[in-house]
């Protein structure tokens, strides 16, 4: 008599182990993982076929890897699958036959044999229950919707940033044009490339700056003249014939009544700030003494 155990909530149908075909397949001869799943199932079917009492086409099998090189094969004749409970969403063995349990216990001690056997479900592939298919469809629809929504949000975000970048490019180009207008005036409207025009103008200005640095304005000699006139002794009756000032030299040529007054003028001139007396000369003249008194600037650092 057929003994059927059905879980009331999950429609989990469990059948006695003797209704199934069982085997532990040695898959070490099969190619390494990486081949397509359908090809692998087909090859496992060839291995299983050698110990099945009926052709593989008449059974529906599932294969569960136990450990490296070993797969548990579990199959049920297709006619028994066809008359399953219509509400069943999973169908599997209640327990494993003793020889399988013994093999699992001896060779695969780490495996929880009871839980492992409970995880076997033959309602897969063409026997997948409509309820499971509907649930999978719903789940897929949710995934598709989430994917679409995420893509939409990311695309909108990227598009906003794209627009923002484009807008900032326009602003910057406008700013650049304003700078060209400010720097070059109408020169930007005569068809010339403003960037080249700006660089050309910049080169001209750099050249002008170099020229300016080379052409130093000579020092203002009026300051030296003011100092000299400030120190000029009022008592000296000099008939000055010439005062000549340049940036680096002052030459005073004076006609004086006598040597004493010439020396007094020399002493006064020695007190002019920033200047020192050079090689002066006295020369007798018709009405007295002619003094030639050169002044040179005191070099920086000279005591």
């Amino acid at each position, binding site marked *: 008599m057929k003994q059927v155990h059905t879980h009331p909530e999950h429609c989990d149908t469990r059948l006695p182990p003797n209704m199934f075909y069982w085997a532990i397949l040695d898959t070490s001869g099969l190619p390494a993982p990486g081949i397509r799943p359908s090809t692998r199932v087909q090859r496992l079917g060839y291995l299983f076929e050698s110990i099945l009492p009926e052709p593989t086409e008449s059974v529906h099998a599932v294969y569960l890897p136990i450990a490296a090189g070993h797969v548990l094969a579990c199959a049920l004749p297709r006619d028994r699958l066809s008359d399953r409970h219509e509400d069943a969403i999973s169908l599997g063995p209640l327990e494993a036959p003793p020889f399988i349990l013994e093999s699992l216990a001896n060779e695969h001690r780490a495996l929880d044999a009871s839980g492992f056997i409970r995880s076997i479900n033959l309602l897969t592939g063409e026997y997948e229950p409509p309820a499971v298919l509907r649930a999978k469809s719903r789940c897929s629809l949710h995934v*598709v919707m989430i994917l679409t929504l995420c893509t939409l949000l990311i695309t909108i975000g990227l598009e906003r940033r*794209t627009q923002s970048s484009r807008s900032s490019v326009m602003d910057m180009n406008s700013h650049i044009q304003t700078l060209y207008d400010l720097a070059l005036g109408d020169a930007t409207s005569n068809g010339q490339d403003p960037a080249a025009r700006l660089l050309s103008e910049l080169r001209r200005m750099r050249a002008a700056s170099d*020229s300016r640095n080379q*052409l130093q304005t000579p020092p203002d000699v009026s300051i030296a*003249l003011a100092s000299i006139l400030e120190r000029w002794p009022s008592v000296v*009756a000099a008939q000055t014939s010439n005062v000549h*000032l340049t940036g680096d030299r002052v030459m005073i040529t004076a006609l004086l009544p006598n040597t004493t007054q010439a020396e007094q003028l020399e002493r006064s001139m020695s007190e002019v700030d920033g200047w020192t007396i050079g090689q002066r000369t006295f020369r007798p003249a018709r009405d007295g003494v002619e003094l030639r008194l050169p002044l040179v600037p005191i070099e920086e650092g000279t005591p």
Partner: protein
Amino acid sequence: MRFRPSSAIAGTAALCFVALLLAWGRFKAADQSASSARARLSRVSANVIELETLRAELPPVMPSDKPHGFLVTHLRESLQRADLAGVQIKQITRPGDRVAQRPGTSGDNALVSLRSEVIVLESLTTSELGQWLQDWRQHHAEWTPSQISMNAIRGRTQLSGGYSVTIHMTTLFSNHQPPGLNP
């Protein structure tokens, strides 16, 4: 035909990937364009700032329509301000402009020149000369008295007497009127 949820997800994922790829491509292109514009703006700004700084350092442009007229006018005004309207401007000459000679150039198109004008004023006492120089420096600081030669006029016997004063006035000026700002 059987509905395959995994195919629907894969198809949607592929479409989403293509859409994201296109949006990302557009964004990257715009972003690169913005980076390039930013770099260009920065470069142009730096160039314009340097240009304006150099222009600001340039000496003023010299009116060249009336030779000497510019200086003569200022000289008369300055003498009047110093109550020396009676002083005679005997002579104004221009020895020539000096330009910075750069290797391989003739100097004809120099942007900056150093101009000297030689002024000869007659019958000026030392105090009058001081008065006038003070006014000149106050109002025309760009013209520097770079050389002064005082020659006593025959017959005068004191330093405070009359002199013939020869003054070399020197100034830097630009030959180039820059376009745009700072004309």
